[in-house]
């Protein structure tokens, strides 16, 4: 049965390396279709995406559920990148020295806590708070962190290579622009990986058996698994190797029991047992060791108790300050409301379904997408928003909706995207250079792809004029406006994304279409 463990290692390594690469790759060489397949393998986002109707990736989710119902939480040791991350942390001491081999001891699972977190996460999603998922969902947290930490490093290396190459007359490597720096967006991911790393070093895969909401859901399913890893009484020689090697700490070798609901399916025990005494056995119902019914009861009570936290979840969600200070300028007022990317349907839909995995942030070619702080509320921390100080949304680009694994961003076809109004431009005449400096400018109108911003004669100059029915809120005008720090033209968010009117155009008369008859000079 050795192939079980080695097969598991190969799959997990492949998924881990690919996902890590995708989130570090600054050139976006991985095609969207591959990204879609990779993220469809992730249970967390796929579970959220159920809400947006059928899509082919759901078959993968059904497969994951089926596998769990057959053999338990194998998902946690194969497809989950955070699981593999912890396995690597576990391995490090052993790589340094053979003698550092980790030894684990059985620990009674924290089932109540885990089911509490899983239950609250699910209920949260239903009542509109994604806080716990955002905080603990393993895929999103791993890839978001690796992107936040790795991206600046990769860009530094690339730029060093680019400047060296140019000195030698090679122009094939181009400089890359750093994403706008934000302390929170860097510190939080570092803290998260540090937390999981230290936890793994001290306690094995406790994150997975106690805090992970996806693990919790799969754990409930694995209680009903047809096949469970078990110690075969006759073949066990009581060496205890299986317990020592169990990262999930769910094997009680002394009592010959395995808490299968906490088993993360790594198969290390099957591989380690010298006598073949640890095996998958057909066992629909877990045989409860004596004394557990009481414990079960307790955990059920604790789980129900945790439901009392639901109102707290609502409070967390409401924590965003709704009061708009009248003393603020119109610009400052508008900028308090973050603008969700195109395809978000509404701010509400977006903030309730985005797990902040930052795949869109990583893939966005203009880097206009940027992790929010708490602008979306406490629950929506790190969900991406449009950052027009860094860039503006490319008119012909639909990448963010194509890659979103949770359905928070709907996939938009190009013609639809070009009419999707995510916000409206507002013009503050009194701040405009044409008024304040009495000089021509027009940078806003120049960049506008729909000519919602037009230049109209004003005194002996030209002044911008916004026709918001044509505006799609791409932010080109705001980005280009040279007035600082508060722009004279800026986009205010649409709570609900609307459909802009098709840009109207005078058709150039046929006579003008003719070629030049004579030079006009």
């Amino acid at each position: 049965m050795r192939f079980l463990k080695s097969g598991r290692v190969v799959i997990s390594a492949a998924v881990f390396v690919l996902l890590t690469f995708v989130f570090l790759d600054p050139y976006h060489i991985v095609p969207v279709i591959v990204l879609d397949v990779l993220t469809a393998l992730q249970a967390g986002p796929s579970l959220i995406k159920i809400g947006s109707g059928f899509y082919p990736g759901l078959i993968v989710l059904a497969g994951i559920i089926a596998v769990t119902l057959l053999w338990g939480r194998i998902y946690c040791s194969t497809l989950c990148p955070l699981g593999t991350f912890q396995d690597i942390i576990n391995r490090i001491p052993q790589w340094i020295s053979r003698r550092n081999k980790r030894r684990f001891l059985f620990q009674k699972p924290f089932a109540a806590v885990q089911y509490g977190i899983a239950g609250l996460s699910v209920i949260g999603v239903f009542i509109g708070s994604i806080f716990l998922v955002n905080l603990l969902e393993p895929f999103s947290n791993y890839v978001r962190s690796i992107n936040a930490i790795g991206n600046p490093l990769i860009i530094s290396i690339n730029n060093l290579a680019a400047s060296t190459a140019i000195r030698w007359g090679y122009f094939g490597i181009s400089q890359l622009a750093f994403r706008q720096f934000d302390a929170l967006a860097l510190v939080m991911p570092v803290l998260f990986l540090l937390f999981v790393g230290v936890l793994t070093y001290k306690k094995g895969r406790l994150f997975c058996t106690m805090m992970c909401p996806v693990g919790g859901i799969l754990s409930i399913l694995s209680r009903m698994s047809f096949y469970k890893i078990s110690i075969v009484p006759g073949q066990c020689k009581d060496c205890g190797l299986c317990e020592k090697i169990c990262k999930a700490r769910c094997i009680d070798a002394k009592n010959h029991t395995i808490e299968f609901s906490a088993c993360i399916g790594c198969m290390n025990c099957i591989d380690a047992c010298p006598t073949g005494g640890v095996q998958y056995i057909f066992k629909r119902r877990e045989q409860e060791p004596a004394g557990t019914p009481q414990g079960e009861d307790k955990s059920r009570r604790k789980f129900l108790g945790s439901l009392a936290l639901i109102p707290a979840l609502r409070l967390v969600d409401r924590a965003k300050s709704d009061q708009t200070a009248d003393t603020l300028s119109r610009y400052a007022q508008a900028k308090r409301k973050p603008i969700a990317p195109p395809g978000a349907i509404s701010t509400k839909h977006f903030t309730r379904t985005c797990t902040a995995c930052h795949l869109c942030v990583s893939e966005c070619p203009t880097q206009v997408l940027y992790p929010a702080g708490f602008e979306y509320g406490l629950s929506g921390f790190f969900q991406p928003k449009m950052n027009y100080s860094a860039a503006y949304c490319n008119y012909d680009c639909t990448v963010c909706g194509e890659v979103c694994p949770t359905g928070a961003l709907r996939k938009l076809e190009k013609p639809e995207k070009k009419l999707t109004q995510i916000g409206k431009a507002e013009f503050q005449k009194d701040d405009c250079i044409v008024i304040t400096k009495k000089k021509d400018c027009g940078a806003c109108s120049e960049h506008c792809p729909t000519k919602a911003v037009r230049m109209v004669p004003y005194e002996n100059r030209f002044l911008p004029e916004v026709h918001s029915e044509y505006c799609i809120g791409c932010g080109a005008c705001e980005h280009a406006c040279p007035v600082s720090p508060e722009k004279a033209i800026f986009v205010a968010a649409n709570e609900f994304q609307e459909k802009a009117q098709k840009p109207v155009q005078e058709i150039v008369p046929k006579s003008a279409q003719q070629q030049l008859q004579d030079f006009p000079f």
Partner: protein
Amino acid sequence: MDRRTFFQKSLGMSALLGAALAGKHESLFAALSSSKSGKTVDLVALKGGEPEVMFRKGIEALGGISAFVKRGQKVAIKPNIGWDVLPERAGNTNPKLVGEIVRQCVQAGAKQVFVFDHTCDNWQRTYQNSGIERAVKDAGGIMVPAHTEGYYQDVKIPAGKNLHDAKEHEILLESDVFFNVPIVKNHSSTRMTSAMKNLMGNVWNRGAWHSNDLHQCIADFATYRKPALNIIDAYAIMKSNGPRGISQNDVVVLKAQLLSTDIVAADSAAAKLLGSDPNEINYIRMAAEQKTGRMDLDHMNIAKYSF
């Protein structure tokens, strides 16, 4: 001397002789073309041909590409590659024209031919979708990125009234020859974009121009470095909703091209092609007042060609 060295030496000699003859022939030809009317050509205007065909004729009228590019020199070409739009939208310089210029520079023995622009839209998409990246690479040129501040260096503009310094792309500082290759377009800020306005893509900090009297800054920057030649693409021109345009309805196929070493003269003629009065475009007037070039088209020796 054995047979082998004899062959080598005689081959070398004949190559040298050939090169000398060719050089002589070209200069003879250049002299002929400029002496056709007795005085030098101020402006070449062409119409009715394909972009690359018109350029071949136009550059010939100015003495051929070798009058501008010497063997071993580095050439920088600055087309307008501002917007992520396809060639038929005429938002960027015609890729066929850019490709032909690169090809001729390479044939003239240029060491390297660089093409770049500080794009407005995302640079990678814009380089690609404009068709210019492909055309340049096929012709043997090098596309140089210009999208981060790291590519730019501080330069002084001593003759500037409002604009005294700028961050200019380093490839310009490295190159021996600079060709300015804009497209004529309607422009919402400045009425027209053509040769002088195109130079805005040479610098990083364009925002400062917008907040510091755009017209004067454009005129000021034209005093800084005179392009060896301005080649204005007017094959298809954007008559409305410029500089980005909304759709192909903004585009008129004019099939024209202008070449001039005088950037002000080139822009004045371009304005007329667009149907505007050059006097109403402030930066042209300002540049003429600053003696950067001439705008009196009526008193110029204009070589006109029709196909």
